């Protein structure tokens, strides 16, 4: 079931250097570009924690589901018993950010008949919806919430979001109007790979969602 949204407004851009505590960001590291996400997390002065087993989820403030092969990742998530612990972490209020394959893991529906995995985001996705590798592309992505300067989107065998529920906030769309960056409560997802560029705004947004959590529940 999609999680009921408790949409906190975007907190003002906090300088990560002034945070009272260095945030620990889990990154699912079964395979994929977890290393690039870890570099992005270090660059915003938070601590990356590679997650390969359920015990690695203990004590993290947020979780990233990286790019990679969604077919492979879904099998490994279940092989190591990670599906329920990750869902529980998100239900407990920890922000989650998925890129590309990570977006597929988060989706509530997968159009080609595959079983959905985490169902934390009320969207339907079509895997490799933009085509095979020869159709992979780069394009600017405008996300007004993150400022006037567009992000640079690298789309690799990317999924297409074919439907988004009413609780889903669409942050950016492609030329055909299909969502490519979405948010529902504390769950974020992009069809592209911000981790492959030097732009850290999406990762900062994830950090801000942790702060928003503290603001609503008290320290």
């Amino acid at each position, binding site marked *: 079931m999609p999680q009921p949204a408790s949409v906190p407004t975007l907190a003002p851009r906090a300088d990560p250097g002034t945070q009272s505590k260095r945030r620990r960001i889990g990154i699912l*590291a079964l*395979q*994929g570009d977890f290393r690039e996400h870890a570099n992005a997390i270090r660059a915003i002065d938070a601590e990356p924690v590679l997650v390969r087993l359920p015990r690695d989820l203990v004590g993290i403030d947020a979780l990233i589901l990286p790019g990679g092969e969604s077919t*492979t990742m879904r099998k490994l998530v279940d092989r190591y018993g990670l599906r329920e612990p990750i869902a529980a972490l998100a239900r407990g209020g920890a922000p989650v950010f998925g890129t590309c394959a990570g977006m597929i893991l988060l989706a509530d529906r997968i159009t080609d008949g595959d079983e959905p995995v985490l169902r934390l985001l009320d969207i339907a996705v079509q895997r490799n919806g933009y085509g095979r*590798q020869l159709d*992979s592309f*780069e*394009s600017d992505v405008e996300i007004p919430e993150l400022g006037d300067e567009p992000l640079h989107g690298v*789309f690799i065998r990317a999924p297409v979001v074919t439907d988004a529920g009413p609780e889903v906030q669409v942050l950016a769309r492609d030329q055909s109007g299909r969502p490519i960056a979405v948010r529902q409560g504390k769950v974020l997802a992009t069809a592209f790979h911000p981790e492959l560029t030097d732009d850290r705004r999406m990762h900062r947004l994830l950090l801000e969602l942790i702060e928003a959590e503290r603001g609503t529940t008290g320290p």
Partner: protein
Amino acid sequence: MAIIETSTWATKVGLARMLSGGVIMDVVTADHARIAEEAGAVAVMALERVPSDIRKFGGVARMSDPKLIEEIKDAVSIPVMAKCRIGHIAEAQILQQLEVDFIDESEVLTPADEEHHIDKHQFRVPFVCGCRDLGEALRRIGEGAAMIRTKGEAGTGNIVEAVRHMRAVMKGIRELAGMREDELFAAAKELRAPVDVVNQTARLGELPVPNFSAGGVATPADASLMRQLGAQAVFVGSGIFKSENPELVARAIVMATTHYDNAEILAEVSAGLGEAMRGLELSEIPAEERLAIRGW
């Protein structure tokens, strides 16, 4: 979304990064491909014969039949790679036309050109190339390879050459990273590699493209060893479908690649796999039958 550019360098290297931490398996039928995908492979290499059979069969080894490649593409949703001969531009054009996700310009096939590799920048599809040392790796990157794999000695089930090549590459990178900037020109000359790629590697302290391992991986422990020596992912050729229990071995090698630094899991997945592929001692292979020496 403004200007859209397809098949860029970033998307080529990006796909290689998406395969990191995973296992790419050689398959010769659609059934094999499905077994590989089910076991958790991140990609498959579509071949008519695995390297140990190429060795046995002899003769000229060429690109696979497009019909086989299409069958394998239809069977799985993970990326499909295929091999062309070193320097064989036309085979590469055919593979691009088939829309494979990666081309391996491979020493496992009989070379078509003993002087030139393919100018891979001219292609929209990404390429992976083998290497035995840093100079070879950087020459291939200069020609446009978006992924490097150390060669090892394919079809032997013997990890010794893979280790030799990975150690040579990693040692070479450490040496470059420790140099003064004005020493890099001489290093480029020594390595016979483009100076810009040499500079970039020295600055990064690693190859500018992902660095995988191939040629001789037969057990979960082999996969872990190569990851510990610096490989970001592993190619497994004959090691899976020439073993007694391909499903079990495939699954175990995937788990060992993810948990390469977790001895508890390595011990668990190494147990009860049955007989591994029969290995070849390198001294049993006549020098002219060594595959790794192909490529320049």
